[in-house]
């Protein structure tokens, strides 16, 4: 496991630290989150993991909507569970698309500002709506919005009190590419301004584009954490398994053994199973080798390329 090295941008606001110590959560016999410890400081952190890895459970515990079965979740030393005052510094955008559809976005965000007892709720609401670029639609009922627009309305409501910590559960779900880009830019700028931003995602590319720091969860455990590039390298350097079928499997097997990127070849009746250390080098070398030995490749199937298997590999590593 690599160590966390968050890049600290120049803090423009008071910064907050969200700390999890030995946090577990179980439902009956099912362990959803297993002994997770992490500290989140200023900047954007991605919480990456396949569906069902416990990301949402972890986020709910961070946001004070679930008691840890064991361990502690604190924001600047105060527990988040049964402690409403933490919401002065914390904002949450949950995954569930729940909005008061009968309100307009402006009314919705204004209500949030009022509930926060902000000194000038109207100004705060306008600022938050401008931040998510929803001004043009702000006087329409949320019920008429697209999924992406609803999401932005929810983000505006969560940002209205300018929290130091913002937690977002799968914020890019249902957004079109333009909205996605805009949200990514927004998260970046919030992170650069010294806020602690954590968002969850099961899509590698989303995390890659938004955050330098990443926490990877697999099956309730923290599988890796730290700089995204390091984790990416771990992921690309793991052994890849391919199934190859050709006109002459035996000849191809012999030729492949000479290829440096190949770490193992297995020959059976259905074809070849090739283990390669470097995904790119192997897939580039295979056509050349086949051509040089007069073998025609009929099928090349990468095995086990699901995100789950990538994550499981990290867990073993």
């Amino acid at each position: 496991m690599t160590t966390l090295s968050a890049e600290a941008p120049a803090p423009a606001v008071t910064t907050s630290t969200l700390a999890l110590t030995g946090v577990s959560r179980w439902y009956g016999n099912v362990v959803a989150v297993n002994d997770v410890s992490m500290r989140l400081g200023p900047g954007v952190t991605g919480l990456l993991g396949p569906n069902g890895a416990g990301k949402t459970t972890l986020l709910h515990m961070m946001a004070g909507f679930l008691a840890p079965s064991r361990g502690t979740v604190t924001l600047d030393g105060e527990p988040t569970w049964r402690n409403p005052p933490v919401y002065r510094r914390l904002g949450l955008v949950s995954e569930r698309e729940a909005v008061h559809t009968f309100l307009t976005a402006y009314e919705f965000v204004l209500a949030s500002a009022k509930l926060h007892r902000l000194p000038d709720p109207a100004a705060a609401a306008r600022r938050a709506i401008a931040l998510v670029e929803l001004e043009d639609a702000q006087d329409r009922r949320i019920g008429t919005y697209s999924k992406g627009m609803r999401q932005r309305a929810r983000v505006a409501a969560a940002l209205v009190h300018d929290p130091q910590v913002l937690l977002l559960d799968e914020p890019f779900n249902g957004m079109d590419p333009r909205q996605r880009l805009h949200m990514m830019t927004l998260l970046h700028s919030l992170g650069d301004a010294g806020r602690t931003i954590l968002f969850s995602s099961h899509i590698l590319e989303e995390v890659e584009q938004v955050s330098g720091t990443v926490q990877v969860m697999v099956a309730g455990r923290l599988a890796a954490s730290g700089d995204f590039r390091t984790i990416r390298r771990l992921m690309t350097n793991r052994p890849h398994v391919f199934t190859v079928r050709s006109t002459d499997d035996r000849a191809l097997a012999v030729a492949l053994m000479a290829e440096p990127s190949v770490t193992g070849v297995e020959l059976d009746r259905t074809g070849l199973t090739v283990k390669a250390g470097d995904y790119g080098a192997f897939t580039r070398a295979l056509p050349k080798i086949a051509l040089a030995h007069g073998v025609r490749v009929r099928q090349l199937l990468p095995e086990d390329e699901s995100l789950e298997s990538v994550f499981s590999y990290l867990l073993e590593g």
Partner: protein
Amino acid sequence: MSTVTWITARGLFGRRRFLMLLPLPAVLVALAVLCTSLGVDPREWGPPVLVGLGLAVVLPVVALVVGTGVLGAEIDDGTVVHVLTKPLPRWQIVLPKLAVATGVSAVTVAVPIVVAGVLADSVRLGVALAAASALGALAYSALFLALSLVTRRPVLLGLVYVLIWEGLLGRFVSGTRVLSVQQWVITLADRLAPTDLLTAAVSVPVAAVLTTLVAVGLTILAIDRLRSFSVAGETS
């Protein structure tokens, strides 16, 4: 008006289930008007319409729809999270919701019950029924609000209480009447406007004390449960 009150009221009137409140009171008024215009003796139609329909059906059903609507509906669709992610002490969420639920239920029941009470006997009876119903609405609302927080099926459990406990058992097992909001309301109305049309099954002090206890106790329970509100776990 507090923001919680405003959102609660908007949510209540903005949902279609609110329309469910209208038919029952209308039936109550229609029956009372019909019986009077046909010249039926109030001693005959009074108890079944005022008590059997008004206090035993209209009041608890209206209170159930409204009481589970002010918080239960928000828990169901997840919008409650927006109110809970605010630095508000939880009583500042529960009390406005209880006030909206009690107010809306009391008014919805007061209009038809006053009409029916006046037609059956006197203005005094009408007002007494409305006042006792308002106290009943408070007890019921506290009950259904608390139910919204202790179970995922508040409407079902609420119906079981109203139909089985108050309706069925209340009729055959007299002991259950002591713990029946309906009986407290009858007792209190009878105390405010003594009439032959109402038959009290519990004493006035018992009704008054239990109404207060239920309203206060269950509200405190609701506040405490809201403090520990957990979002349903999604372990797939």
